[in-house]
């Protein structure tokens, strides 16, 4: 990890910091303007439900395209070729689950959180507590991965090598994020996502055209360039198997990862919450369509950027650079446009982390304040919504502090498994519960508790005993050895088990809620009585 302590050669840290500072300044002004209208709970959590479909779709893309996708996937394609592409496909196809099965029905039945949908027909307090628990768990793992990623990026792009200096930068990122969330609420955060998505997609589009232009806009020529640059055995970059084809177990692991990716997205709490920021279910549909187009384009760009980095920079130089495969996209930017383009890309990568962390924080704070504080602790009898928003703001502050400390502690850890864990928990604990709740009339309180707590515990236990945590040199604890479960990603086992738990828990309970389900189904399909947008 000591190699991380130097920045990329040819990078200009002052320039990088300058561009990033400009981004922060512009977004802070936008957040301040947006905050003028943030008064009610609906304003704070759901931006008054006033965003249009295209705006929200762009914000979804901003929330979803994390630094891990930008730096990680481009790097994986540059080094492992085809196998890196498999991530992009899983992350994109997953949106069809959200579009067809979740987005509109969720918008029509809930108010702010996943807990609202469950509480519609089940016993409020236990299901809200369960929903908030899994929301906080997913947000925490995802948050930690992003903050740790920020630590790596700092050393990579700003040339800040000292321990204290890196910690300071993580703290600064955390503090800026807290300001966005506290001041701007959901509206401010959404605008940060929109600006970030626009910057990220424009920058990657420009680089994609630039790379393709170097090869006469011929994809086959570009691939040949990557093969030639890789030297002997470079042909393997074009074919599947370079990363996951090593053993029978790694193949099963890939299948498991593929399933967790495609089913996890529609259970990610910060994605679910975005569906509440639009006025109607039709706008929720429109926002998913926009998100699918933007996210699809972005992943097509990363394919070109990955092979482009392989062809123009070369796998050897990337692997030996500070940050390893994460440096592929920044190195490509340097190769194409010199320090100025690198500075821009560095700032975009920072903005990406900042925006994703802000989105997660507002989701987690809303879930705590709305589900646990207002409905579990105060039993729904809290008379002032202002009090609930105050609790949400305090929670955001606490989560921000936890993220800063966690990010500092986790900064030299292997973070890929944290993202995989977040997706696996979302796919196991959240998705079965949401789908049963929306489509199965027999589903009841006991079933929801079984699928959430069962899914959450199975996933966490399997991860603890997986090769991602111990038993090899890439693990979180390389010296310990308790990897009893062979797969790094538990999805293949934990997702079917969670569906089973949800069914079993339902059948074991005599609670029947079919009458309430009829009301819920009419509401979810027609939008009757759904929460309206607020007027200012």
């Amino acid at each position, binding site marked *: 990890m000591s190699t991380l302590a130097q920045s990329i050669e040819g990078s200009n840290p002052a320039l990088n910091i300058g561009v990033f500072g400009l981004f922060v300044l512009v977004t802070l002004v936008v957040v301040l303007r947006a905050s003028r209208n943030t008064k009610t709970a609906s304003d704070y959590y759901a931006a008054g439900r006033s965003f249009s479909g295209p705006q929200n779709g762009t914000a979804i893309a901003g929330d979803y395209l994390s630094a891990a996708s930008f730096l990680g996937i481009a790097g994986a394609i540059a080094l492992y070729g085809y196998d890196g592409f498999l991530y992009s496909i899983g992350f994109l196809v997953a949106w069809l689950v959200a579009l067809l099965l979740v987005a509109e029905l969720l918008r029509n039945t809930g108010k702010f959180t996943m807990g609202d949908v469950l509480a519609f027909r089940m016993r409020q307090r236990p299901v809200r507590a369960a929903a908030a628990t899994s929301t906080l768990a997913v947000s925490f793992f995802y948050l930690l991965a992003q903050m740790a990623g920020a630590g790596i990026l700092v050393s990579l792009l700003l040339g800040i090598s000292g321990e204290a200096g890196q910690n300071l930068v993580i703290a600064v990122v955390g503090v800026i994020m807290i300001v966005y969330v506290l001041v701007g609420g959901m509206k401010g955060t959404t605008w940060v996502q929109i600006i970030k998505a626009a910057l990220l997609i424009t920058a990657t589009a420009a680089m994609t055209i630039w790379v393709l232009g170097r090869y006469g806009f011929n994809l086959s*020529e570009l691939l040949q360039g990557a093969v030639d640059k890789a030297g002997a055995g470079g042909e393997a970059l074009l*074919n599947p198997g370079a990363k996951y084809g090593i053993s029978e177990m790694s193949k099963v692991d890939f299948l498991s990862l593929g399933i967790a990716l495609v089913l996890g997205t529609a259970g990610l709490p910060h994605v679910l919450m975005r569906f509440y920021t639009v006025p109607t279910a039709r706008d929720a549909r429109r926002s*998913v369509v926009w998100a*699918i187009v933007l996210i699809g384009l972005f992943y097509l760009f990363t394919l070109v950027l990955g092979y482009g980095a392989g062809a123009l920079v070369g796998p050897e130089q990337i692997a030996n650079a500070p940050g390893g495969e994460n440096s592929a996209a920044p190195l490509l930017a340097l190769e194409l446009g010199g320090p100025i383009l690198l500075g821009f890309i560095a700032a975009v990568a920072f903005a990406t982390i900042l925006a994703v962390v802000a989105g997660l924080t507002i989701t987690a704070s809303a879930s705590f304040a709305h589900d646990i504080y207002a409905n579990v602790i105060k039993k729904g009898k809290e008379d002032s919504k202002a009090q609930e928003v105050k609790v949400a703001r305090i929670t955001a502050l606490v989560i921000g502090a936890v993220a800063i400390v966690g990010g500092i502690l986790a900064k030299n850890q292997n973070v890929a498994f944290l993202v995989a864990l977040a997706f696996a928990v979302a796919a196991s604990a959240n998705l079965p519960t949401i789908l049963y709740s929306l489509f199965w009339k027999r589903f009841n309180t006991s079933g929801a508790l079984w699928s959430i707590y069962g899914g959450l515990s199975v996933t966490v236990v399997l991860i603890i005993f997986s090769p991602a945590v111990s038993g090899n040199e890439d693990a979180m604890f390389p010296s310990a050895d308790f990897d009893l479960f062979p797969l790094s990603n538990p999805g293949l086992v934990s997702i079917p088990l969670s569906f089973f738990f949800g069914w079993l828990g339902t059948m074991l309970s005599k609670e029947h809620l079919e*009458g309430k389900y009829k009301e819920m189904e009419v509401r979810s399909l*027609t939008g009757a009585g759904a929460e309206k947008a607020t007027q200012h």
Partner: protein
Amino acid sequence: MSTTEGDQNSEDTWARVHGGAEFQELRRRLRGFVFPMAVLFLAWYLLYVLLADYAHGFMSTKLVGNINVGLVFGLLQFVSTFVITALYVRHANRKLDPIADKIRAEVESEVADK
């Protein structure tokens, strides 16, 4: 929210609307589209993952220049995602929204009267 209006009258209203021919038609049109489509795209995605995982030889077959079966298969996943999105939007705009709007207007005027 539902919890505040859970009296018997409104529950009867919801049950009646739910049992009505129009709502049943809406429900059939939604489920008849999204369930088969979900099975289809998940199977298509799983086929892709399994081929990329276990059929390396087949996926490595070159078609034109350096473009091989695997790359085409991967790009087809993008195409199918865009196509299914477009089909769903068309279906929802034409077959779901008009009925949903009609039922919503009826329910909201009725619940408001009580």
